[in-house]
């Protein structure tokens, strides 16, 4: 699918209206970040052997720079086998969500190097990337292993995050890059 995604289970008009008014939670849209869900996803990624590097705000969190985000950014090794591992991990974490089948190696290795997966539950979504423009890929981004509840998580280093963020157009990325530079005494390059 491109540019739009149908909901799994359409809510009733009353549910949508109440949720929009903030007077009742919509069943499809829970309203708190579920820590256990994130741990479950990271564990599934590890157990399926997905080759990925966590980048973005979540990676900054691992390094001690904390800001809120709505997504987890995964830069993955661009092979068909790895995409299959990723799909297995998402299926495992999200109870065989049928939407996972829309993630394909032919897209990620071809014309669509970025896909966004909105799981059926939870508040975070996932940006899965096989390359970042012409500047970075799984092979070129430096990373290190962190742990969360004994789950190994491969995280981009502060310097790698700084390099990724300083060259983008988003003001928020520039702010992140400056925070990284100051926190880790990174040199301007």
């Amino acid at each position, binding site marked *: 699918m491109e540019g739009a995604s*149908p*909901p*799994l289970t359409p809510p009733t008009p009353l549910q949508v209206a109440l949720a929009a008014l903030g007077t009742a939670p919509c069943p499809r849209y829970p309203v708190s970040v579920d820590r256990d869900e994130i741990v479950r996803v990271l564990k599934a990624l590890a157990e399926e052997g997905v080759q990925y590097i966590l980048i973005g705000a*979540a990676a900054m969190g691992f390094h001690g720079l904390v800001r*809120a985000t709505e997504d987890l950014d995964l830069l993955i090794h661009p092979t068909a086998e790895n995409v299959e591992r990723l799909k297995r991990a998402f299926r495992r974490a999200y109870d065989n969500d049928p939407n996972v089948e829309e993630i394909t190696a032919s897209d990620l290795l071809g014309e669509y190097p970025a896909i966004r997966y909105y799981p059926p539950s939870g508040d975070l979504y996932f940006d899965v990337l096989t390359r970042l423009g012409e500047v970075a890929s799984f092979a070129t981004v430096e990373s290190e292993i962190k742990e969360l509840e004994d789950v190994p998580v491969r995280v981009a280093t502060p310097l790698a995050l700084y390099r990724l963020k300083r060259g983008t157009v988003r003001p928020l990325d520039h702010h992140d890059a400056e925070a990284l530079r*100051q926190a880790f005494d990174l040199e301007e390059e």
Partner: protein
Amino acid sequence: MGVKRFRSAEDMNASAALLVRQGGFERFLRHCARYWRLAPRVYPRGVVKFRSIEEAQRARAHIARENAQRLHRRCAEPE
């Protein structure tokens, strides 16, 4: 340091971000949870494909704008 003083808001904004030495990711998760309680989002579900990072960022900005407008309408409702 319990309190840090600034001579202006600009100085405050230019100060270094707090670096958490231990438990940064746990703090990140708690921060995201607070953020969500303050401003619950509505997302589509499923998979969306993008030809470039820029395209993905435009889509993100569009949904962020929709959410901001929805939250603004909610706040504007008389009690």
